[in-house]
């Protein structure tokens, strides 16, 4: 079975744009139920976490909680800087510098 990539791209585009535009389309008529609004508040932090935690803890697909894992070292720096300074640019730049320095100089 071969996947039709252009059909996939079209469907992904429809789904993605649909999610983002659905509420905007009828902005004047829409009010979200307060309960749903409260639950959705957790959506972004939870989904983003479910993406980045495996990415740094198991970069090769296996749990790697060791000092040989530069992703884990970089993420630890990112978490500390983000909680301490609450600055996204500083978090990205310092943690990436630490990540690459550790990967190339230490390992």
């Amino acid at each position, binding site marked *: 079975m071969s996947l039709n990539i252009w059909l996939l791209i079209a469907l992904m585009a429809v789904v993605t744009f649909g999610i983002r535009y659905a509420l905007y389309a009828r902005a004047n008529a829409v009010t979200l139920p307060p309960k749903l609004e409260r639950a959705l508040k957790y959506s972004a932090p939870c989904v983003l976490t479910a993406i980045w935690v495996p990415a740094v803890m198991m970069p090769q697909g296996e749990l790697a909680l060791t000092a040989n894992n530069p992703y884990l070292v970089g993420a630890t720096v990112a978490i500390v800087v983000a909680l301490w300074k609450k*600055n996204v640019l500083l978090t990205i730049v310092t943690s990436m510098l630490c990540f690459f320095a550790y990967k190339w100089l230490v390992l």
Partner: protein
Amino acid sequence: MNDSPKTLFVKGIIDALPLIVGGVPFGIIFGTLALNAGLDSWQTIGLSSIVFAGSAQFVAVGMIAAGTSLGFIVGATLIVNLRHLIYAASLLPHIKHLPQRWRIPLGFFLIDEVYAATYPNYLKNANSNNHWHYLGVGVAFYLSWNIATVVGILFGANIEGIADWGLDFAMSATFIGMVMPHLINKPMVAGVLTSAVLAVVTYSLPHKIGLVIASVAGMAVGYALEQRLSEKERS
């Protein structure tokens, strides 16, 4: 003070820059990985320019490489992008007054980074031209993402081993920078920790279903704890 559309548009571009720093390496690695997964250059550019959804593009390319069927990939796209619905909901009061010709591009640009750079501006400045700032952020991020994708395609074909450099760490760094400021109360911390643990535990399940389980469970835990704490307060 009501800044002009031009001033706000430029301010939007400037506010987007910190997140572009994280987005560019991620876009480059996306370009190289997509080729490795078997897509051609135009399909890779198509994903970045027509779909424009960083993490969903990443997930999709991983699933294509694993030979997953079309329905599952579209389903995963839906789940991974569902969080954009809450961004739309929270920006809704600010875009209500705009005609559709504005809402359509603003909706198309509504990704994590654009929301993260735009929403604070709406809170800080009451300005009827703020949609120009939103547009500036969106255009800047869209262009940088697509240029990075093309650079990744060129690098991927010409530089041996670029996929092993670890440029994908930029995505994790950006997401950490965006998530940590939310951890200001118990329900949010509990929800995020639940998602973190379950994402690792369920990682090996097929079709990225683990991502769905971890996300939904984290939201449920956060919401349930918030309900319980507010009930306790009342009693």
